[in-house]
């Protein structure tokens, strides 16, 4: 009998029972009423009485509802009422919010697209920079326990980290107790012959202890034995994986095979793993004792050797530093002539690798963070505008009983949904962006091969997306959830509360302010790079070709033949049509090689090392200043008459002349050069910025000495002949000359290679790569910031004009002119921009100071840059305000007032 149930359901209505439970109770009680009704009838009661009594018993005077409330309410599941606050499960409502959010976003594709794009740019840029930071700074090195690996350098008055004399290294290794072991490594070039074309290989001389110290397990074969790392031992070689794979075709039987390196037969004993990298990745590794130079045996020469140590467990870096320093102090007392003033310095291997790029990356991390904040502010403003449009929706919900927290949660879900979507898009942007940036700045980043979008980066992006979503969603959500339903539901209610406008204005001001900071940073970097490009390097870099050259193995084994071989090579190259002049040098400017050598004024005996000064030392052929167009200040340069039979001569640069012979004529004076002995000064040339366009002025060693190749003693000829560079000045484009030069260098025996072929302009721009990279990235960020800020101002002003259409209509009706109306809108917008500008300039003054080290020729608080930034941003802001202002003048007073 359904009417029982109907009656019962009516009584249960106020209890908010789950539908299933309500039906069950109604059925059971209905059954009871039915039984009672039948019984009363049987007892002779009239039908109407029986019905009334039965009903009364099951629920008269709301007794049932009252009794049930205490039983059933305790933990009865509640129906899901949208927007209602309750003890319903967060997960269930989250799913609901997500679905609803999806629908809402899909309903307004324009808003969703703009917001998502802005966020995607912000998140993508952050992901890209983080993937760089992750790869370069955070990824651990590919050695076991890399934190315990230290590089060990010598130090002296001029150099914090100078290379190590081999005998000193041997003493350190023997005496120190802080390390499980120490290894030594020294980069060098090798000529690889006997397998087709002669080839130049990048190589390393290493101690047999190096790979065990690093903890490297060989891909195949074995490590060097200590007895292979002895003077006079047969030459063995360990191959880099890339070299073995590409050049030797991954020959599985390579072990035991012979390779001719620098005219020496070396048998291959191992191959390194593919991921092995130590500072540079080389192609071949040879025991250091195979390095034939007698300079390896002296404590005077520091042949680019670096020590590596692995700390024993429990030993701190400080303790190791102290120990090595004390061993060095003992050596300095023992060998005062060579070691006086020489200390030691340990550096974590990671710091050495990436220390120089760290400030740049940190700068970019800060800058990209600003970009994201700007994007957030922009989207927050969009959401604010939207939340005004959705006010009625929230008001209806609130009126239906939705709690504030519930609306807040749903709005936040929407914004997080938006930002996570943008995060996915941002990942794509980051993927492309990273590649683009790396392509734009090749070689300017150490460890750039480690940069990729790995799980860590994905996690970062997700975290940034969620945090971003909450960040930009918070203010709009609060304002939305706080909407007063009564006010909002009034038809025609105009505008929003003051909170909204204040929030909007703050967001726009913040955007403008941050854009100012980014623009100032980018402006300063542009100025630095621009100024650097105009720095006079001390020579003419146009139309210069440089290439490293190597002589035929036959010549190399016959020292007296070396000089004539170079002279013939030069003659052949100079005869190529289009070549103006050609020369050989041991040192190319701006190429990061250092060949400092100690010298002392006067021709007396060699003093102790701490009494000598260093100069950059170049061994050159007579035409060198002609080729580079280095101006001759006094005297002459070298001629063919300066040879082994004549007394040694040198040419110095003007810096050395001023420094060592102030107010005197240096011509004819003697200078002592370590190893080579005394030489007479025959000329003074202009200073060349060897160290770099930016750093040379501040370099510790600026004195320069040129020494003629033709006077290099025969005992040094072999090693002096390695790693020399040919410089060619040509009339046509230098790179068009490469094949002709290669052919002439190869010579009659066809076994003399050229390698590392670069134009001087390439070298110069390479020396600026890091700064240009910073400039490029900062410019991209600044442009993005500018665009977003412009959109932000435009959006807010457009909205303001719409909102004030009525007011403007009244003003027009009362006789306001177009100019007055335009001025009204412009004033409002420019006030916002002005506040942001002022705050941004103040912040920029403080923050750009942090990038002082990256600047050249411009102060962080450069007034010209700041004025330019102000004008640019002011102009853009004006434009962004002007368009809505124009629209305001078009307001039709009749239409605006009719809306009332």
């Amino acid at each position, binding site marked *: 009998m359904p009417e029982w149930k109907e009656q019962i359901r009516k009584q249960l209505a106020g209890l908010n029972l789950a539908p299933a439970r309500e039906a069950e*109770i109604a059925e*059971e*009680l209905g*059954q*009871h*009423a*039915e*039984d*009672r009704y039948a019984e009363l009838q049987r007892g002779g009661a009239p039908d109407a009485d029986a019905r009334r009594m039965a009903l009364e*018993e*099951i*629920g*008269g005077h709301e*007794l*049932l509802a009252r*009794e*049930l409330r*205490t*039983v*059933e309410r*305790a933990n009865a599941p509640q129906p899901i009422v949208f927007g209602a606050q309750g003890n319903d499960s967060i997960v269930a409502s989250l799913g609901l919010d997500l679905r609803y959010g999806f629908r809402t976003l899909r309903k307004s594709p324009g808003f969703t697209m703009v917001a998502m794009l802005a966020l995607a740019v912000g998140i993508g840029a952050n992901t890209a920079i983080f993937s760089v930071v992750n790869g370069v700074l955070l990824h651990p090195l590919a050695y076991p326990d890399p934190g315990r690996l230290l590089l060990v350098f010598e130090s002296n008055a001029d150099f914090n980290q100078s290379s190590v004399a081999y005998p000193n290294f041997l003493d350190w290794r023997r005496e120190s107790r802080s390390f499980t072991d120490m290894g030594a490594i020294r980069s060098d070039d090798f000529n690889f012959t006997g397998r087709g074309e002669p080839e130049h290989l990048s190589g390393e001389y290493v101690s047999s202890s190096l790979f065990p110290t690093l903890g490297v397990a060989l891909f195949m074969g074995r490590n060097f034995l200590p007895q292979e790392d002895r003077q006079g031992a047969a030459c063995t070689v360990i191959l880099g994986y890339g070299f073995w794979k590409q050049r030797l075709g991954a020959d599985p039987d390579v072990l035991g095979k012979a390779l001719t390196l620098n005219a020496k037969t070396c048998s291959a004993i191992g191959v390194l793993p593919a991921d092995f990298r130590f500072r540079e990745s080389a192609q071949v590794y040879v025991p250091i004792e195979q390095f034939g130079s007698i300079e390896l045996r002296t404590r005077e020469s520091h042949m680019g050797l670096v020590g590596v140590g692995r700390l024993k467990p429990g030993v701190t870096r400080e303790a190791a530093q102290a120990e090595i320093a004390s061993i060095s102090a003992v050596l300095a007392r023992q060998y005062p002539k060579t070691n006086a003033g020489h200390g030691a310095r340990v550096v974590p291997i990671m710091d050495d690798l990436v220390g120089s790029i760290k400030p740049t990356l940190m700068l970019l991390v800060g800058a990209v963070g600003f970009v994201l904040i700007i994007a957030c502010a922009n989207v927050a403003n969009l959401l604010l505008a939207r939340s005004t449009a959705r006010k009625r929706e929230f008001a209806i919900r609130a009126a239906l009983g939705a709690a504030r927290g519930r609306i807040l949660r749903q709005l936040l879900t929407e914004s997080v949904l938006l930002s996570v979507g943008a995060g996915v898009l941002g990942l794509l942007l980051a993927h492309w962006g990273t590649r683009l940036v790396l392509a734009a700045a090749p070689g300017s980043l150490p460890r750039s091969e480690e940069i990729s979008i790995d799980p860590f980066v994905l996690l970062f992006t997700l975290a940034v997306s969620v945090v971003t979503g909450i960040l930009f969603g918070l203010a709009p959500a609060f304002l939305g959830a706080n909407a007063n339903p009564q006010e909002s539901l009034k038809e025609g209610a105009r505008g929003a509360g003051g909170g909204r406008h204040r929030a909007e204005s703050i967001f726009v001001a913040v955007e403008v302010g941050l854009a100012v900071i980014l623009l100032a940073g980018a402006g300063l970097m542009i100025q630095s790079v621009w100024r650097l490009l105009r720095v006079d390097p001390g020579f003419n870099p146009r139309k210069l070709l440089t290439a490293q050259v190597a002589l035929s193995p036959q010549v190399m084994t016959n020292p007296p033949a070396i000089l004539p071989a170079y002279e013939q090579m030069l003659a052949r190259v100079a005869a190529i049509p289009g070549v103006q002049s050609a020369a050989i040098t041991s040192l190319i400017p701006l190429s990061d090689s250092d060949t400092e050598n100690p010298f002392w004024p006067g021709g007396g005996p060699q003093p102790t090392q701490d009494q000598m000064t260093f100069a950059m030392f170049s061994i050159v052929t007579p035409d060198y200043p002609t080729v580079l167009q280095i101006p001759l200040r006094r005297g002459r340069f070298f001629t063919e008459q300066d040879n082994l039979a004549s007394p040694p001569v040198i040419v110095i640069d003007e810096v050395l002349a001023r420094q060592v012979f102030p107010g005197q004529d240096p011509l004819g004076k003697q200078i002592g050069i370590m190893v080579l002995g005394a030489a007479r000064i025959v000329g003074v040339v202009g200073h060349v910025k060897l160290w770099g366009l930016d750093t040379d002025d501040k370099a510790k060693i600026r004195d320069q000495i040129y020494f003629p190749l033709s006077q290099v003693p025969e005992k040094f000829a072999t090693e002096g002949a390695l790693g020399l560079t040919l410089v060619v000045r040509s009339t046509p484009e230098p790179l068009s000359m490469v094949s002709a030069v290669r052919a002439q260098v190869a010579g009659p025996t066809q076994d003399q290679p050229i390698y590392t072929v670069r134009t001087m302009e390439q070298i110069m721009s390479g020396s600026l790569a890091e700064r240009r990279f910073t400039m490029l990235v900062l410019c991209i960020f600044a442009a993005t910031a500018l665009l977003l800020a412009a959109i932000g101002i435009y959006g807010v002003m457009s909205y303001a004009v719409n909102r004030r259409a009525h007011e403007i209509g009244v003003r027009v009706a009362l006789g306001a002119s177009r100019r007055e109306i335009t001025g009204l809108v412009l004033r409002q917008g420019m006030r916002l921009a002005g506040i942001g500008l002022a705050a941004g300039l103040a912040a920029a003054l403080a923050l750009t100071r942090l990038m002082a080290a990256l600047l050249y020729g411009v102060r962080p608080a450069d007034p010209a840059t700041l004025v330019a930034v102000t004008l640019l941003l002011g102009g853009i802001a004006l434009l962004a305000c002007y368009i809505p202002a124009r629209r305001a003048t078009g307001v039709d007073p009749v239409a605006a007032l009719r809306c009332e």
Partner: protein
Amino acid sequence: MEERSIDREWKKGSAELLLLSLLEGVPRHGYEIGKLIEQRSEGALRFHAASLYPLLYRLEKRGWIQGRWVEKSGQRRRRYYRLTAQGRKVRASQRQGWQTFAAAIGRIIGVQNA
């Protein structure tokens, strides 16, 4: 008047015990329980459905009894309640408590408890 006062004052304390006792060994539905209370108390005790069922639900929620829908041929389905193991323990201890209580009251008011 007298009947009403019994209803109100005494029923509250003893209702749970009554229900548990009636379900001892036999599953019963709500209407049957109500009828049995009325019959066995010879009309002195009566439960309104409006308070009987909420009480059943409360006991069920506590896990002392368990209700199950049972369909018998030719009848509409009914919900039968039976005692759970926990319910049996509770019934035993409540009965014990009731006896002690009733005896004590009897001694005080001078009624000889049989």
